[in-house]
């Protein structure tokens, strides 16, 4: 299960709805929309921003060698040219991985003269189970880097958003940031109210403004916007679900989620099929421990059916890097017989062309093992996780 993220232009629309100041902007999703979008900007200089779900865009490079996913252009004409170079091109940043992400939307912004930059975010504080506002004078920097190198430059305040942000909580933040002067504090106060309300009402997991800026004419503006949502709460937000961009997600992962499978692609060659998230992680770990490399995380859940197991096999085999499969099941309430039937059913429906090691333990394990043995399938049976991991690594070969 993944956090749902949205694009900057969508996040800024939400900011506007919650009274958080943003610069004027217009998005275009195809070449034919570019002229109309750029025409909505004031005359003169325009900023062009590639829209992908990853940070580090400004310093990124496109796969055709073109540099920079955020560009300040001197004219509308130049902005149009730059936008055409970006649209449909693939941007690689330090967060996208080497494959990069295709830019399917560009966002035009009016430029702004910056006096000072800050960092401001609301997220969950797991330690106390409450939201926390995180602020820093080090705007535009990665907050993790600031936290590691100059933690004294970060201020945190736990809030109760159902109640609202108290004036004293705003003062703690405003004094720490140097935004306490009367007119500026009034702007800051409205901003924090909007941010906390957005976080709470839309079930966000993160609302981040980096950088938040004070412009040279004294306005407090969200220059960038990043919002993640709690997947478990999307059932009560159809308007947020509609913002989902499936092209940003791995098609195999989308496929798996439609069968209730928790599947995450990794870069190894031993596929895993496991029940339970903790056991699935531990299975990846033990493959690595014995010198192999896991191709995926896959939790089939506690109530997996033959159909789900069949589809799980189909999906892991669609990954061309897979050279072997490890099935690791601890049947708690679920019977190992059910799982074994699922495996045999799957093998009959999907051609399994790579070595398959199966470890069954728990409820009805003898019947499960019998089913597998009598199936005539080339399945290697294992006793315990260590045995299973060693067997599949031996069959596939260690990774360099």
């Amino acid at each position, binding site marked *: 299960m993944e956090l749902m993220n949205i694009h900057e232009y969508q996040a800024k629309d939400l900011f506007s709805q919650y009274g958080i100041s943003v610069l004027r902007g217009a998005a275009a999703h195809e070449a034919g929309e570019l002229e109309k979008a750029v025409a909505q900007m004031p005359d003169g200089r325009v900023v062009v921003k590639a829209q992908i779900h990853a940070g580090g865009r400004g310093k990124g490079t496109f796969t055709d060698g073109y540099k920079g996913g955020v560009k300040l252009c001197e004219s509308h004409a130049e902005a149009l040219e730059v936008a055409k170079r970006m649209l449909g091109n693939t941007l690689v940043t330090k967060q996208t991985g080497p494959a990069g992400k295709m830019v399917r939307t560009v966002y035009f912004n009016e430029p702004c003269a910056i006096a000072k930059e800050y960092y401001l975010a609301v997220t*969950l504080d797991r330690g106390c189970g409450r939201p926390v506002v995180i602020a820093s004078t080090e705007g535009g920097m990665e907050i993790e880097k600031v936290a590691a190198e100059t933690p004294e430059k970060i201020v945190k305040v736990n809030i109760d958003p159902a109640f609202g942000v108290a004036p004293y909580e705003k003062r703690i933040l405003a004094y720490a940031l140097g935004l306490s002067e009367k007119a500026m504090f009034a702007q800051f106060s409205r901003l924090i109210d909007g941010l906390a309300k957005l976080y709470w009402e839309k079930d966000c997991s993160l609302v981040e403004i980096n950088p938040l800026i004070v412009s040279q004419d004294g306005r407090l503006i969200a220059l960038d916007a990043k919002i993640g949502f709690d997947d478990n709460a999307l059932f009560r937000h159809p308007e947020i679900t509609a913002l989902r961009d499936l092209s940003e997600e791995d098609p195999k992962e989308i496929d798996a989620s439609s069968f209730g499978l928790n599947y995450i692609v990794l870069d190894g060659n031993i596929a895993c099929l496991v029940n339970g998230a903790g*056991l699935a992680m531990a299975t990846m770990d033990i493959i690595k421990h014995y010198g192999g490399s896991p191709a995926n995380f896959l939790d089939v859940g506690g109530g997996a059916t033959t159909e789900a197991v069949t589809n799980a096999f189909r999906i892991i085999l669609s990954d061309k890097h897979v050279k072997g499969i490890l099935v690791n099941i601890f049947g708690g309430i679920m019977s190992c017989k059910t799982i074994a039937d699922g495996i045999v059913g799957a093998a009959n429906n999907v051609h399994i062309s790579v070595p398959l090691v199966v470890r069954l333990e728990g409820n009805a394990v003898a019947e499960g093992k019998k089913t597998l043995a009598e199936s005539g399938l080339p399945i290697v049976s294992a006793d315990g996780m260590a045995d299973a991991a060693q067997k599949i690594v031996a069959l596939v070969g260690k990774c360099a």
Partner: protein
Amino acid sequence: MSILIDKNTRVVGQGITGKAGTKHALNNIAYGTKYVAAVTPGKGGAKFEDKLPVFNTVREAVDKEGAEASVIFVPPPFAADSIMESIEAGIRLIVCITEGIPVRDMIEVKDCLRSHPGSRLIGPNCPGIMTPGQCNIGIMPGYIAKPGKVGVVSRSGTLTYEAMYQLTQRGYGQSTCIGIGGDPVNGTSHLDAIKMFNEDPDTEAIIMIGEIGGDAEEKAAAYIKQYVKKPVAAFIAGRTAPPGRRMGHAGAIVSGGSGTASGKIAALEAAGIAVAPTPSQIAETLLKFYK
């Protein structure tokens, strides 16, 4: 021989008239757990499987049947409300099995728990709690357990089973096993469970199973270093998990470089806790210095 529950614990099931809830409640009852009532709004007055009275509210189950613990099999959109209903009714131990409760709802539950210190929540998104041979509340398979003196606490259901089964196969039983759940906001932490095991005269040794995300394991390690003299062994899942991805459990995510398996393992080892190198060596790691 246990913490939190024993053979006399009187349990009310919320949402056990549904299909999954019925199956697990019947398993629990067959194990010997003392269920005294079911609560399903709108079905008050009926009988659950010809055995238990069904009430419309938890308050009635407390007043009429003396329920002191509750187990929740209510769907995610309504589960937090069910937890708070139990808290309001004065239930001292609430076990919420439900997976997929919105974080915002759990933030509200956590606030409610803070103002009602007499109630403890286990979970959500957990397998439950079991005192082998006496009481099993939730979805843990009874046959892998054995009465004994090792306390087990874990964020993961199936890894709890691995540890219990490894112990049982080697002839070592468990005092109480607690699955605290895989969500980022939960009721009972590793630290809470460790404190209870430490104070329980019948728990001689402890197994703690953690995973990536948050810093609950680190907090428990700091406490163990200072206060716990009983043998403690641990396992942390997710050494190979890529950062920024949620590994099945909502709370299992490495974000911003924090919550890594290596950081947790280092904190545990610095506290003098033996960390199992692989999930198949959890019991073995403990039994090296606990006989």
